[in-house]
């Protein structure tokens, strides 16, 4: 039983990890949490849904277009909204992301109503494809793990091995110093929002079959992703991924051994506890500046 619990935790934890990673990428770039992250992912998931059901596209072309849409949505948030604020305080920016969230929520409600729909991915929720003494995995479970792993790997390689990644890290640390080396800080900021939106969109599509598609579908995953990010330390990319997996595990163990009713409170409790005991999260390392 414990084996199954752990495997299920990894599956749901990998979705949390994606949401947390999405939050962390933009947090590192802009120093504010993006509260519209969930709704951006929701919109992108609707795009997948429409492409699959109305346009009859198959899954991979639909995902490709969704990724493009999500990237664009991130650029739009940065370019048309965040960038317009003159000498913004963090609070100004947060309010803008909340405004964008409400806008997207309203838009989705108007376009698709609050009618609940079902998204059909080519991965079955019932077909068990790995089964042994310790655990069983459905096709959807396996696809979730594999896709999440690929996304994490791609993001890791992008940040560690490419010029774009280097520019992103440089801008996170010192915007002026980045500019004086020829980096367009605005462009890097916009791209960061685009990439983060893609990661969130993939989390949305992966979580959609487990939920029903409606404009508020990402509220819970966003809260979980946020808790995971806080747990891992918002600014540590590997930290937030571990945070996501850990949150999945803690939640499942709590639900099984202690109380299924209060399982959903765990994420909130973790946010409070971490902020009380170690506000920088478990994995964020702090640099002491030499004078």
């Amino acid at each position, binding site marked *: 039983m414990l084996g199954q619990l752990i495997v299920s935790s990894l599956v749901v934890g990998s979705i949390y990890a994606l949401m947390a990673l999405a939050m962390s990428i933009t947090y590192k770039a802009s120093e504010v949490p993006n509260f519209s992250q969930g709704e951006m992912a929701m919109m992108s998931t609707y795009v997948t849904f429409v492409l699959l059901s109305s346009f009859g596209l198959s899954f991979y072309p639909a995902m490709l277009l969704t990724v493009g849409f999500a990237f664009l949505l991130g650029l739009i948030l940065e370019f048309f909204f965040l960038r317009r604020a003159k000498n913004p305080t963090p609070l100004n920016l947060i309010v803008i992301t909340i405004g964008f969230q409400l806008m997207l929520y309203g838009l989705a409600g108007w376009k698709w109503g609050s009618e609940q729909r079902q998204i059909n991915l080519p991965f079955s929720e019932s077909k068990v494809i790995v089964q042994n003494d310790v655990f069983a995995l459905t096709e959807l479970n396996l696809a979730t793990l594999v896709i999440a792993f690929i996304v994490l790997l791609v993001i890791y390689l992008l940040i560690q091995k490419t010029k774009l990644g*280097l520019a992103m890290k440089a801008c996170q640390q010192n915007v002026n110093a980045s500019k*004086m080396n020829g980096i367009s800080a605005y462009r890097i900021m916009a791209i960061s929002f685009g990439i983060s939106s893609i990661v969130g969109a993939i989390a949305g599509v992966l979580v959609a079959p487990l939920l029903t598609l409606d404009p508020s579908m990402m509220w819970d995953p966003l809260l979980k992703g946020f808790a995971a990010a806080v747990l891992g330390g918002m600014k540590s990319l590997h930290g937030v991924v571990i945070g996501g997996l850990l949150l999945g595990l803690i939640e499942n163990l709590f639900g099984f051994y202690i109380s299924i009713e209060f399982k959903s409170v765990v994420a909130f409790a973790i946010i409070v506890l971490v902020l009380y005991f170690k506000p920088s999260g478990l994995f964020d390392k702090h640099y002491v500046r*030499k004078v």
Partner: protein
Amino acid sequence: MAEPILQVKNVETYYDKVRALHGVSLEIAAGSITAILGNNGAGKTTTLNTIIGLLDDQPDKGTIHFCGERIDGKETEQIVARGMAYVPEGREVFDELTVKENLMVGAYLRKDRQGIKSDLEKMFHFFPVLKDRINQHAGTLSGGEQQMLAISRALMNRPKLLLMDEPSLGLSPALVKMIFNIIPSIRAEGITVLLVEQNANMALKIADFGYVMENGRFVTSGTAQDLQADEDVKEFYLGIKAETAVKGEQRYKRKRRWA
């Protein structure tokens, strides 16, 4: 003088409603080392930040031409792309990037892999200690090492004009000497240097030309030799007291002559 590489004309820069530069004009000959001298708060850093476009919506008045092209009002990264590089006050290295990564950020605008590689070697030749620290985070370096890194990072862009803001600040005398030895070698590479310094003695030894700044304007300028011989510069910046200077009144008169 042939066409100056940098020409600043009547520049005024504001911080909010407060004017910090009151009509600054400056010309730099290609291939020269020019020094800007002046005490704390004179406006030296503001001048450099204005030139390289780091102050939003500044300069408020005046023009800046670089290599014959007007650059005031352009974004910093566009100015840098035209061949300017900056060693800022306080070094501003990327603490959580390695020495190698810092240097690669300096080469951000370049695509010639071979050239980048040979320039890295050149930096390690200038500053061998950087090679020993190549995989260390810049935040773990000493102040002197960070200054060497900041200079190398700027040079990695192969600039035509290098702006340096008080590179000797906070360094030991030995390191100051080392940094000041490097600057002529940089010029020997064909790079024009604009050097801001409070250490007027050292700066005028290596500079061809100098400007003295007070309260947001240049009060005197001339060749390095002229400035070294100038009684006022001697007294107020080189720490050599003129024999005739009799404290208050005399000082007041001299100051007034400049203003």
